[in-house]
């Protein structure tokens, strides 16, 4: 394969064997990520994102197909792959509680053979950037979740990897910390051409804000892969409406027979029902409003808007990212 590609997969598959059945976590995934790209993998929980990351980081063997990272086959030569990569995962609790932040970070640099002076310089610089310099001497069991995740970020970037895997890196963090870390990622890639980041997330705005290209993954398959702009452009023939109404029962039944609805999703937000429609044209809207009225729902707001990645996701998967996974995507209250 070309060395210009940071990551390449060919019909990559992973099947887990449970007691009486097989679970297909990845299904013949073909992917090419050029060096220097900030690439997003977008999908709900259980879509196969983490399985893909585990294979690419040599933690898991594929059951079919092949994958290369930095031009090296991950199954045949895992040690060579490891020289080029690092990983940061959301909710990570690595390190040793009795050690301070800087001691833990120093320890992890030793596993990459980084000399003491370089390690200390990088630790100081990176802690400063993420705003954790004043906690350098704090034992990590005294850190809050956000601080701990900042430390994990620093750990991932400390080794200056050629390819960095960020697996749901802002999961469960507050808005401010998430923004700091996203800013850090953008800055790091911006200043280092040639470095590649593969980011998995189920926060749409995160993928939209950070990524050069995005792949949408669902049930182990890549459904679409393009720049966020191009993905949205596919939807521009359609019309996207967001309606907020008083709580209504069984929205699926209510709208299933109406014409002109391409995709539809709904979510309960603060006692109201949020309805999200991708319509063939605006003529499909009046019957929807009539149906809401008939079910004794009251319209609170109606918004016509430009397609977002969320709309792209709904049009491809048939449901929103927040449905069925505990609403994790809504916890931060950021623009969706």
């Amino acid at each position, binding site marked *: 394969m070309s060395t210009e590609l940071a990551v390449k997969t060919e019909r990559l598959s992973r099947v887990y064997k449970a007691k009486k059945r097989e679970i297909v976590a990845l299904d013949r995934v073909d992917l090419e990520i050029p060096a220097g790209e900030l690439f997003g993998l977008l999908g709900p929980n259980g879509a196969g994102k983490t399985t893909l990351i585990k294979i690419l980081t040599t933690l898991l063997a594929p059951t079919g197909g092949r994958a290369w990272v930095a031009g090296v086959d991950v199954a045949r030569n895992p040690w060579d792959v490891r020289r080029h990569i690092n990983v940061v995962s959301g909710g990570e609790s690595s390190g040793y509680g009795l050690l301070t932040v800087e001691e833990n970070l120093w320890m992890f640099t030793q596993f990459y*053979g980084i000399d003491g002076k370089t390690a200390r310089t990088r630790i100081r610089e990176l802690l400063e950037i993420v705003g954790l310099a004043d906690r350098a001497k704090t034992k990590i069991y005294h850190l809050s979740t956000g601080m701990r995740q900042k430390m994990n970020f620093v750990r991932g970037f400390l080794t200056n990897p050629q390819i960095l895997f960020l697996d749901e890196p802002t999961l469960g963090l507050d808005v401010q910390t998430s923004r700091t870390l996203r800013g850090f990622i953008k800055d790091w890639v911006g200043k280092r051409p040639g470095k590649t980041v593969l980011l998995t997330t189920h926060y749409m705005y995160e993928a939209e804000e950070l990524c050069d290209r995005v792949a949408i993954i669902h049930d182990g398959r890549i459904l679409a892969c393009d720049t966020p702009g191009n993905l949205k452009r596919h939807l521009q023939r359609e019309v996207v409406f967001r309606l907020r109404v008083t709580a209504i029962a069984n929205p699926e039944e209510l709208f299933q027979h109406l014409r002109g609805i391409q995709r539809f999703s709904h979510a309960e937000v603060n006692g109201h029902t949020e309805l999200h429609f991708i319509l063939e044209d605006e003529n499909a809207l009046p019957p929807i409003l009539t149906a809401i009225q008939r079910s004794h729902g009251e319209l609170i707001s109606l918004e016509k808007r430009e397609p977002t990645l969320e709309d792209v996701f709904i049009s491809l998967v048939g449901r929103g990212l927040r449905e069925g996974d505990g609403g994790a995507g809504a916890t931060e209250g950021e623009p969706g």
Partner: protein
Amino acid sequence: MSSPTRWEIFWRTVMGRAYPRVVGMQRERSWLFFETLLPLLQVSAFVFVYRAIQAPPEFTGFVVLGGAMTAYWLNVLWSMAAQFYWEKETGNLELYIIAPTSLMAILLGMAIGGIVFSTVRALAVMTLGLLIFRVEVSIVSIPQLLGVFLLTLVALYGLGMLFSSLFLLYGRQASHLSNLLQEPVFLVSGFYFPVRALGSVVALGASVIPITLGLDAMRQLLFPTMMAQFHFLDVRIELGVLAVLSIGFLWLARRALSYMEDLSRREGRLTLRGQ
């Protein structure tokens, strides 16, 4: 900046992984009470049994030495063999695996940290035991004593590395192995009496646990008169067997780790928590 060589990564990993154990010891000093005075109580129980039956005073020495060496056996079982289970639960194991280092280096770092920790406990038990119970030793040969002690540790920690590969694959299920080995080994390795008392066949079988021959040889080198009638094998033979065990266990550990890591990757168990 040039890339570090495999050897540089190996030795830096050893130092890096030994660090938390050595530093952690100093940060939580409550262990000093639990790890020195409490083991001494156990030793005392055996000492008073021997005194009650008017056994020769050297038997007190046998018990104190055995009591000191328990520190290493417990450390090997619970902080070497079982450590990968805990590392998996905290997420550290993933970071060890994805780093361009060797798991043997990680284990060697753990072993060095563990030896420092256990040696403090062993020295405390030995010193307090010798002083409190007024045990007299007559050292036959310091170099031989040091050689036996070091080879026992190398072989013992090599065995611990071998066990740790099982934890890589089986996780918590493998802790039964540690439970299964802890007390029986105290018995068959002769921690509190000369192993020959169990008969040659049992002693020979128990010799696969390096501490069996290590204890027998160290007792011969510290209490030569009494051990003349209780020794199992000649010290030179025991040194030779310990050397073979050291090399054998380290070699097996390396092979087993590599095999188990590969198998765990195929079965998806490297990052499977709570198993």
